[in-house]
């Protein structure tokens, strides 16, 4: 039951004093009927998260305005039919923006635009102020190195071990020697709460869904990117693993200060980790603001989307 050990360990870490400072509410230490409690704990945390992220990334008086890391300006894109219509938003340094919306509304397309796997019909995508819409293929490859992407199904390379997977971006783009690469791989695997010695030689097919996601995050992190992109990081996972992954994304934001764009339809974990939420509907961004603003909204679609939440 290695996964359970992991989860327990992570749960313990979550009760670490430094965490307790941030989250005022006490948590139950013993758990019988763990799953239900995990969900409840998570719900409690969601309530706190709004306050948390607000305190961290909301506009603070007296603080310098932050750098814009990602900006999408008036993006339109159509294939057989229009997918995105005049979409604009910005992400400041260290922010986590969660893009929510119904399935098939083009959420993942936004990530592909940021990675320049797609080019918009109209509008401009800028990373660190650099317009990436008209780059050549090679220059686009360079821009992508600033970003770490976590795919829905983790997208680990089947033919490589966990170690080779995490080491891949290092081998491709750095001149690190083998010792340095191994040190970096171990560091990243530890960061995502995996035991390097146990998983390094395993093949992706031997891992559980949650572990795959974590290796995926470790691979995304390997090159120390300034931007992390997540495509449905919690889809298809059980509530406990979902909590673990959500916690990891939060940890990344807090400890490394990376700017993140998360595409998700898991509204609960979205509220937990978001600095701002973008609601995509009818090819447009119908709402963009903090989780609190969203819950306070009177708009009927937003109310409906939030449902019983």
């Amino acid at each position, binding site marked *: 039951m290695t996964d359970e050990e992991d989860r327990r360990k992570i749960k313990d870490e979550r009760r670490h004093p430094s965490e307790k400072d941030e989250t005022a509410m006490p948590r139950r230490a013993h758990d019988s009927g763990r799953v239900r409690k995990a969900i409840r704990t998570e719900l409690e945390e969601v309530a706190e998260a709004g306050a948390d992220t607000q305190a961290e990334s909301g506009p603070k008086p007296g603080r310098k305005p932050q750098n814009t890391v990602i900006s999408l300006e008036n993006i339109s894109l*159509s*294939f*057989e*039919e229009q997918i995105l219509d005049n979409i604009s938003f910005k992400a400041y340094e260290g922010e986590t923006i969660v893009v929510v919306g119904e399935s098939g509304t083009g959420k993942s397309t936004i990530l*592909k635009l940021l*990675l320049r*796997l*797609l*080019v918009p*019909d*109209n509008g401009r995508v800028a990373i660190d102020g650099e317009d990436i*819409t*008209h*780059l*050549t*293929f090679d220059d*686009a*490859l*360079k821009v*992508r*190195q600033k*970003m770490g*992407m976590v*795919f*829905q*199904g983790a*997208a*680990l*390379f*089947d033919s490589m071990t966990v170690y080779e997977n995490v080491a*891949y*971006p290092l081998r*491709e*783009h750095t001149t690190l020697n083998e010792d340095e690469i191994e040190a970096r791989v171990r560091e990243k695997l530890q960061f995502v709460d995996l035991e390097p010695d146990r998983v390094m030689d395993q093949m992706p097919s031997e891992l559980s869904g949650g572990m795959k996601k974590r290796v995926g995050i470790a*691979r995304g992190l390997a090159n120390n990117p300034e931007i992390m992109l997540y495509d449905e990081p919690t889809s298809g996972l059980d509530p406990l693993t979902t909590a673990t992954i959500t916690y990891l994304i939060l940890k990344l934001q807090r400890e490394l200060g990376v700017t993140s764009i998360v595409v998700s339809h898991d509204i609960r974990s979205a509220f937990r980790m978001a600095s701002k939420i973008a609601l995509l509907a009818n090819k447009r961004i119908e709402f963009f603001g903090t989780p609190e603003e969203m819950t306070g909204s009177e708009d009927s679609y937003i109310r409906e989307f939030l449902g019983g939440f």
Partner: protein
Amino acid sequence: MPLTSGTRSVAVPYQLEINAILTRRETGHPLPQQHVSRYALVTPHAHQLILETFNDAAKRSVYSLQEYFALAGKAVGFIFVKPFYTADLFQQMDQIGVGSLGIVLLTGFFTGMVLALQSSVQLQALGQTALIGKLIAGSMVRELGPVLAGLMVAGRVGSGIAAQLGSMRVTEQIDALNTLGTDPIKKLVTPRVLASLIMLPVLTIINDFVGILGGNIIAKFYLGLPSSLYWRTVFEQVLSGGFTLRYIPNDFIQGLVKPFVFGGIISTVACYHGLKTSGGTEGVGIATTRTVVTASILILVVDYFLTQVLLALFTP
């Protein structure tokens, strides 16, 4: 080069995916505006509808062809551009070449034997059994060796490549490569194409040899022809086609240009269909089938035209 820019074009579902790797999106040209509601705007006559359908189908196939050649061109171009994925190349050479050795040996051997068996009936009727070596060497080296090796490799390797790249596409591993700053064509397609270009001629030589050997066995045990006579007629045949650059027998050139071309066809067709895969596991199956069918047909058709050209160029 975009096929159409500014004008209307057909809507191809996988355009979204393949374009990221291939030509158009990378050059930053906006995609031509689509025309979804075309049929709704006018109520055309039946013949107009039929024409439209043909028009769309034609455009779609021309567009696919353009994509295919763009991919093939890029893959071959990257052979000469750093970084070289040497480890991948050797792995592919092992899989394509060494991996196919078994079936190539088997098919070559039995084809040679059956060829000898069938022709011995005719030759016995004519009293010309001594010519059997000539007949088998001629057909194996020039024709059957390359084509059989090509067809077998198309079935075994082509389907494998298409399935592998297809599932990599479906599980977003191709996107992951792109995201990690690697050109998937360079990393995945180029080593496979190069390995096929190198290994198919090698497999063909083995196939030829084993086929002639199979003929030898039938000639010896069925017709009672001494092996020395058999092999002498084999060499006579191979050398009778004349020489290029004084020392290279024309038959060898014919027999090795073909597998080289077939290797290119198999690997590029497989990679193209693999990368173009869409629609989950079902899509992988479709891509695999398409690869084997397309590659096999192309091998047979190209073989005909190649033979005509080679015969015209290398007739003594």
